[in-house]
């Protein structure tokens, strides 16, 4: 369970905000596929998300399997840490 206002909960919150931009831009671009500015905007947020997801995986455990490399884990935190529906973040 994550402590509210901890560094972990702030990073988790930031990932949610960044990913919301990605979802919204992804769907926008599907029906506006020639909007170059929107493609660049999306790329910026994708880079930001990858960085935040890697940082989160290193410090607290992975939120997606593709961030597992470089974590030097001795425990499979993907399985042992709480699941999203348990709340607390």
């Amino acid at each position, binding site marked *: 369970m994550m402590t509210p206002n901890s560094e972990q909960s702030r990073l988790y919150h930031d990932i949610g905000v960044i990913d919301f931009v990605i979802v919204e831009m992804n*769907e926008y671009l599907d029906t506006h596929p020639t909007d170059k500015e929107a493609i660049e905007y999306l790329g910026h947020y994708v880079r930001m998300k990858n960085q935040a997801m890697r940082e989160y995986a290193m410090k607290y455990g992975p939120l997606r399997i593709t961030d597992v490399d470089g974590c030097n884990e001795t425990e499979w935190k993907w399985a042992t840490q709480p699941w999203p529906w348990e709340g607390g973040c």
Partner: protein
Amino acid sequence: MWSYEKRLQFPVNIKEPNAKIAQVIMSQYGGPDGELGASMRYISQRYSMPYNEVAAILTDIGTEELAHLEMVSTIVHQLTRNLSMEEIEQSGFANYYVDHTVGIWPMAAGGIPFNSCEFQSKGDAITDLFEDMAAEQKARTTYDNILRLVKDEPDVCEPIKFLRAREVVHFQRFGEALRIVQDKLDSKNFYAFNPEFDKCKS
């Protein structure tokens, strides 16, 4: 294929159980205008869709709906965990409890189990996109009804308001997709042929 991220699209942290509220919100998981039907509708409609941009929006909204289904399930789970037997008996939850305990199972608020007749995949681009736009509005109306029934419960209302807002955005995107399809058809008769079945003369 799909990959999973171990987080919710919008946070859900409900502290107090409330089986009455859980029973109405459950409809947005497995009810007639729920997120399960939404996701299956768009993902099923993709395969015979001849326009790539439209297949793209069906894929990406269909995927986002899976994240919404997870949010609704989480709300129901957090509203039904730690219920006492007394609360179960007094809140009208006994009929659900007897078959599912406090497990999550897709059904409408009135008890009708989820089935695929709650959505259509007609194999006609214009028919399907009108269905998709209507589906987003029906889900929006359901969220409005939930917000009228659930007052003074910010932990429940905030994620419901988020889900409601996404219905509005998706209505807009499907409207744009419909326009993309119509731009490729005969403007004097959009229904001259079905672009998912008949060969276009050019």
